[in-house]
């Protein structure tokens, strides 16, 4: 079963930018997310992973039947916690997904686990 592990943290845009800059400039990145990602890959459960830019940079497009698209600056919802990345993993059940979420090298974050639906018509396009 595929699960999205959605990583929410209360990091501000400034702190997030500073942390990203520091990470990129580290010559030989070790530990933390590098090890975690490698472990998921080597366990054969990793389907996809992305780190997102801060919610601060979000653009929202609202679609209402027939009306013209409405573009706004900012996220769909203003919240204290920001969705800053996700892992897409393929594991047997929720317990296994919880275990992978609990192994993430992050403090003070909330990982929302969402199972992916299967058998939808649009998915046949990908086969």
């Amino acid at each position, binding site marked *: 079963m595929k699960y999205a592990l959605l990583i929410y943290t209360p990091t501000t845009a400034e702190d997030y930018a500073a942390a990203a800059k520091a990470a990129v400039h580290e010559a030989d990145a070790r530990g933390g997310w590098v090890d975690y990602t490698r472990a998921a890959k080597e366990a054969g459960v990793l389907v996809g992973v992305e780190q997102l830019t801060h919610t601060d940079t979000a653009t929202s497009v609202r679609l209402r039947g027939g009306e013209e698209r409405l573009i706004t600056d900012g996220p769909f919802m203003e919240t204290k916690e920001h969705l800053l990345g996700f892992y897409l993993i393929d594991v047997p059940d*929720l317990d296994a997904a919880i275990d992978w979420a609990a192994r993430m090298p992050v403090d003070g974050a909330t990982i929302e686990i969402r199972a992916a*639906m*299967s058998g939808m018509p649009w998915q046949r396009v990908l086969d």
Partner: protein
Amino acid sequence: MVATLARRLGDLQAAEDAAAEAFAAAATAWRDGVPPNPGGWLMLTAWRKAVDAHRRTAAVAVDPQLLGEIALRAQPEEAAVDELATQPRQLGDDRLGLIFACCHPALALEVRVAMTLRYVAGLTTKQIAAAFLIPEPTLAQRLVRAKRKIRDAGIRFEIPTRPAQRLRSVRTVVYLVFNEGFAASGGDALIRKELCEEAIWLGRLLRRLLPADAETAGLLALMLLHHARAAARQAGGRPVPLEEQDRSRWDRALIAEGTRVLDEALVRRDPGSYQLQAAIAALHAQAPRFDDTDWPQIALLYGSLARLEHSPVVEVNRAVAVGMADGPLAGLAVLEPVLASGALEGYSPLYAAHAALLEKAGYPERARGAWARAAETSANSAVRDELLRRHD
């Protein structure tokens, strides 16, 4: 049967529907006589119904792997029946898998309790709604949502590979059911005997399925030893404190069973909070009269429990025991930090304990204030009336 089907299908709703259809089919098919293996017949029929249902909905959303598995199993039907219906070990595992799914920590605690009562203990939604004082449609809606979550979120009807944490949740659910019966948090009935009996039934089942787990045995022992006092805990709808209970009305058979189960748990040398609480209950049960109670030993056990749990509620109980063992001033010394912390603001037993200690220490004025506070914070009307009657 529902447990077995649920495990195979990963879907409790589908399992229930299939079982119901099988029973309905039996009503017609068995008119001319019951088949030689009625259990197997029902299981096979239910299985076919489930396969049909899956085929009908296959266009919508079905895991292809599951479909494959069902198709495979639907072929040699006799073999499937053998596997599904006639292996007792398998059935026990299915039952346990169902308990673990109903008690999964990804479900809200009150939902776990309701799911367990409905699908493991077999209570009706009406009974559960009445026990927890919620409207039946609300409860039914919660159960539907929970079943959907179990199916869609991938909670499996299996015994987890690392069961320790999941088992804690199962024990918590069983204990909550018992506690709700033992010290009804709302409403008028002081003890809801049925809930206690359901919890004990669940505790016995768990112990049979997990004979090597010390805390599971500890939980059963605790419930048996508490329930043994049920008849003496109330008189004419009024609660009777431990001190005044007619000990001849305690159920000796339950005490003997509880003590035996506890002894079997303790030899495993894997102590835990249920075993400690059961040991305290056993000491109370063994005292022929209130004055014979081994309070120093009970105070020590509460000390161990406090170290394990860091719970202010445990500290309140420890204060009472210390008060009995070493005098009311020693008890008040244990209680003061709890009162000062405000952690149990509005917790009626805290004020009742405080009042009793103040009274014994010779502060009747302050005790009266504490009794009043205990009465006004109690949600149970029987307890509230009794507190007012005694201390007004």
